[in-house]
C-alpha cells in the first residue's frame, strides 16, 4: 500500500520537533554545564521537594474543589431540556475562549488590597483583607480557570445516562441517594477520571497563576522550571531535570485515575 507514504512528512516532523526535543530534555537532565554525565541535577531537584510538594498539594485541592462544584452542576445541566442544555453548555464554554491570562488578570482586579472586593467590603465597614498573594488566591485562580475542563467531560458522560435507568432505580426502591451512589456515580466514573486529569495537569504545571495571584513570593514547580530557562537562575540542566520530575508526577496521576475508571468500566461491560 502506497498510502503509508502519506505519513512520512509527519514522521519527519515528529522526529525533529517531538522526539529530538524530548531527548534533549533527557540529555540536559543527566549532564552538567561541561557536558559530563551526572545525577546532580536530580539531587538538586530534591532540594526543591517542598516546592514540588506544595504544587502537587495545591493542584489536588483545586482539582477536588472543581470536582465538588462541577459534579452536581453537570448532572443538573444534563437533566435539562435540549435547548436548555445547549445554552448552558455554551455558557460554560464561553469563558474558555477568552485567554486565561485575561481571566486571571480579572481576579487581580478583584482580589487586590485596594481592589474591588475590599472596596465593597469597606463600604459595609469590613476589611481590608489580605486576599491576593496567598495560596488561597492561587487555588482560586486554578479553580476559576480550569472549572470548565471538569464540567464538560462530566456533562458528556451524564447526558448519555438514560433517564429511564434512573426512573427504574427509583421504581425498584432506591432512595435518591442510593440512585446517585449505585447508578449515576458508577456510570460517570470515566468522566470523573478525564475531568481530574484535565484539571490536575494544567494546575500542577502552571507558572502564571502563581506569579499573578501568588505575587511571586509563592513558587510552584512550573515557576522553578521557567526560572531555569528564562529567569535569573538560568540553569537548563536543572530545569530539564525538574521537567522530568513534573512529567513523572503527571504519569503517576494518570496511572491512578486509570485504576479508578477501568475496573468499573469492565464491571459495566459484564452487566
Amino acid at each position: 500500500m502506497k498510502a503509508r507514504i502519506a505519513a512520512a512528512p509527519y514522521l519527519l516532523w515528529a522526529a525533529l520537533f517531538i522526539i529530538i526535543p524530548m531527548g534533549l530534555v533527557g540529555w540536559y537532565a543527566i549532564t552538567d554545564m561541561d557536558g559530563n554525565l551526572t545525577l546532580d541535577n536530580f539531587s538538586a531537584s530534591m532540594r526543591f521537594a517542598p516546592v514540588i510538594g506544595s504544587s502537587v498539594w495545591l493542584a489536588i485541592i483545586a482539582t477536588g474543589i472543581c470536582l465538588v462544584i462541577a459534579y452536581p452542576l453537570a448532572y443538573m445541566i444534563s437533566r435539562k431540556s435540549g435547548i436548555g442544555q445547549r445554552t448552558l453548555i455554551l455558557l460554560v464554554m464561553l469563558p474558555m475562549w477568552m485567554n486565561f491570562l485575561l481571566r486571571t488578570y480579572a481576579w487581580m482586579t478583584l482580589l487586590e488590597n485596594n481592589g474591588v472586593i475590599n472596596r465593597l467590603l469597606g463600604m459595609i465597614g469590613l476589611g481590608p483583607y489580605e486576599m491576593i498573594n496567598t495560596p488561597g488566591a492561587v487555588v482560586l485562580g486554578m479553580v476559576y480557570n480550569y472549572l470548565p475542563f471538569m464540567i464538560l467531560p462530566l456533562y458528556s458522560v451524564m447526558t448519555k445516562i438514560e433517564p429511564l435507568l434512573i426512573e427504574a432505580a427509583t421504581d425498584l426502591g432506591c432512595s435518591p441517594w442510593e440512585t446517585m451512589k449505585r447508578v449515576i456515580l458508577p456510570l460517570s466514573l470515566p468522566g470523573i477520571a478525564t475531568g481530574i486529569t484535565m484539571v490536575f495537569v494544567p494546575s500542577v504545571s502552571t507558572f502564571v497563576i502563581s506569579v499573578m495571584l501568588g505575587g511571586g513570593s509563592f513558587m510552584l514547580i512550573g515557576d522553578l522550571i521557567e526560572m531555569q530557562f528564562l529567569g535569573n537562575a538560568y540553569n537548563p540542566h536543572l530545569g530539564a531535570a525538574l521537567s522530568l520530575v513534573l512529567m513523572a508526577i503527571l504519569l503517576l496521576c494518570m496511572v491512578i485515575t486509570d485504576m479508578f475508571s477501568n475496573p468499573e468500566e469492565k464491571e459495566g461491560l459484564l452487566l
Partner: protein
Amino acid sequence: MTKKQNSFTSNLYIFIVMAFMYLPILVMIIYSFNDSKSRGAWAGFTTKWYADLLQNESILTALWNTLIVAVISSVVATLLGTAAAVGIQAMKKRNRELIMNFTYLPVMSPEIVMGVSLMLLFVMFGVDFSLFTVIVAHITFNVPYVILSVLPKLRQMDKYLFEAAMDLGCTPLQAFMKVMLPEIMPGIISGFLIAFTFSLDDFNISYFVSGERAQTLPVLIYSMTRKRVSPEINALSAIIFVVVLTVLIITNLNDVRKEKQLQKGGRRG
C-alpha cells in the same frame, strides 16, 4: 411538589456557579470604561482606553503576529495531520500503535515541558527566536489534534470505497480527492478549527520560543500584567469577549437552524 423544589434548587445552584464564572468578566468590562489608572477606584465613564488600545503599536503588532501564526500553523498542521492520518490508517497495527504513542506525547505532556524542549532545540541549533520558531512550535502542538480528529472518520469509512473507485478507473489521487476527502471532510474541518483556536490562545509554549521580537498577543498580555497596571487590558478583554460571544451565538443559531431543516427534511422523506 418536591420536583418543583428540586428544580428551584438546581436552578439556583446553576445560577450561582454561572455568577462565579461571569462576575469577574463583567467587572473587567465595567472597569474598561473607568476613567482611572487604578484598578479599584471608580472615577467616571470614559472610552479612552479603547482609543489607546487602537493606537498602541505593540498591541496591534502582536495581534497581527497572532493571526499570522494561527493561520499558517493551522493550515500546515491540517495538511500534515490529514496526510499523516491517511498514512497511519494504512499501516500495520504495531507501527500504528507506536506512532500513536508519540503522537499522544504533546497532547498528554504539560505545555511548559513542550515549551522548554523546543526552546532547547532552537538554542542548541542556534536558531534565533522569531515568528518562524513560534509557527514551528504551534504546528507541532497542533498536528496531533488534527490526526486525532481525522482518524475516527477514516475508521468509520468503508475501506472498499477507495478500492472500488480505483477499480472503476480512478488514479489514487482522484480516488482520494473524489471519494475519501468528502468522507473525512468533517474531521478535517473540526481538526482545523481546534488547531486555529489553540494557536490563537496559546501562551505557555509561545512564551518560551517567541523571544522579544515575535510576541503573540497572549505573550504581550503577560508582559503587560508584569510591568504595570494597564486598563487597556480590560478594554481588550471586553472586545474579545464580545467577539467570542457573537461568533458563538451565530454558529449556534446556525446549528439550530440546520437541525430544524434536517428534522423537516426527515419528516418529508
